[in-house]
């Protein structure tokens, strides 16, 4: 009611003669139905299964599995771990998100080189990414857990504040920042709803549904991928995988989503 009234006022202010009804309410409902139907049979399960295999497989020069990898809740504890990431890890003296921590474990436990394991962070038509499978597996074990990302450690707090600066940083030929598309509520790009990631409710709904199975790509995509592709559309250069910038931004988004019930991998358009 109020929204409609403000909308009408805005149209008058803009000098638009005819107040128009939303011509696409049916379309939006259709998209919602399509999503619901897909969620019943989420292909993300295939990635979760492969992730579980990868987690337990003895691999690398050391022939070790990731089963002793400490995701923050102790070696080998996967349940609920994703809902508390990113976090500060004393053994690396660094704040890490899931993917960065996985790289750390592949290097320290399995003996891989970081360059070797990060060669394919995202899957494509001719190759798969281990990170997408592992992220699906780990994230799925936080389903139903409330997001609880801490800023207690000074480096956690610094990561959040740096991520906040980056979120509002305008640049490139289009003057875009993350906030250009994700700083206001109830906006759309074309027909796609845009979450306001500075608002707790929207941030919770958005963050708790990544990683997600992206129907349009037939791939399971992670938060690292999400940031990478946002920057592409922002007309920025390419964000480095597992970089401090990616971790700081993830910290900003994840902490803004605190209190939200984690429910990924979800199905995305």
């Amino acid at each position, binding site marked *: 009611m109020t929204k409609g009234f403000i909308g009408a006022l805005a149209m008058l202010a803009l000098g638009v003669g*005819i107040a*128009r009804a939303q011509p*696409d309410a049916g379309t939006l409902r259709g998209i919602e139905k399509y999503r619901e139907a897909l969620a019943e049979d989420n292909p993300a399960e295939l990635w979760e299964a492969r992730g579980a295999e990868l987690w337990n497989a003895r691999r690398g020069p050391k022939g070790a599995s990731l089963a002793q990898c400490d995701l923050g809740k102790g070696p080998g504890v996967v349940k609920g771990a994703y809902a508390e990431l990113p976090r500060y890890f004393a053994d690396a003296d660094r704040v890490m998100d899931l993917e960065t921590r996985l790289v750390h474990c592949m290097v320290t436990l399995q003996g891989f080189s970081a360059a070797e394991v990060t060669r394919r962070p995202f899957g494509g038509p001719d190759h798969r990414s281990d990170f997408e499978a592992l992220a699906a597996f780990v994230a799925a074990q936080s389903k139903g857990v409330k997001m609880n990302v801490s800023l207690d450690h000074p480096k956690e707090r610094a990561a959040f504040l740096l991520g906040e600066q980056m979120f*509002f940083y305008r640049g490139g030929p289009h003057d875009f*920042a993350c906030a250009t598309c994700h700083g206001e509520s109830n*906006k759309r790009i074309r027909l796609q709803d845009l979450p306001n990631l500075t608002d707790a409710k929207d941030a919770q709904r958005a963050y708790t549904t990544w990683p997600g199975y992206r129907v349009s790509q037939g791939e399971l995509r992670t938060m690292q991928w999400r940031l990478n592709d946002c920057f592409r559309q922002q007309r920025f250069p390419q964000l480095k995988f597992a970089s401090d910038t990616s971790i700081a931004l993830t910290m900003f988004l994840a902490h803004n989503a605190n209190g939200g019930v984690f429910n990924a991998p979800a199905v995305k358009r």
Partner: protein
Amino acid sequence: MLQKSLPALAVVLAGCAAMTQGDYRDRAVQMMKADFNERGQAKLDRLDQDETQAQCSRKPADGALDKEVAAHIEKTNLDRVRYPADGKLLGDWRAGEKIAQSGVGKQFNDNPKAPAGGNCYACHELSPQELSYGTMGPSLRNFGKTRGTSEAVQKYVYAKIYNAEAFTACTNMPRFGYKGILTEEQIRDVTALLLDPQSPVNR
């Protein structure tokens, strides 16, 4: 070596404890410059801000934009508007509709030799035939019908597309002409899409 660097580290950490917003901003910029790779046409200089971008990188906690700063942004950007030398401001609305539909251009995976789009429908309602439009910007339906096509209106529309910061400080709308996203001819075509009485926007 390690012992030598410890006092330096202590200074850095002590500095962190008292870091201001400006310090975080500087550190964030340094971090970003280290954390992106050049790819295709997207070089690292895209992370270098001009004055307007820096002044418009604002958090909600920063409060409302200072009036003097806003006036400065609008004035400097108005001074940057370049009108076509031949004075012709209206192009072909059919070409304008195609530009409004296209979202390619300037991304690292785009062909730098191909013309960029304006992607107007991402944020605005324009022609009634196109139902897939965004709501980041105001509806532009009947834009010309309600304003007419006087030279003053033509100049305003051309300049608004060329450099939107000249009229609304810290708008979300890109500066299509000033930043070299659209050519003079393309801006003329989009101006016609908005103003031409034959354009679907006005029918």
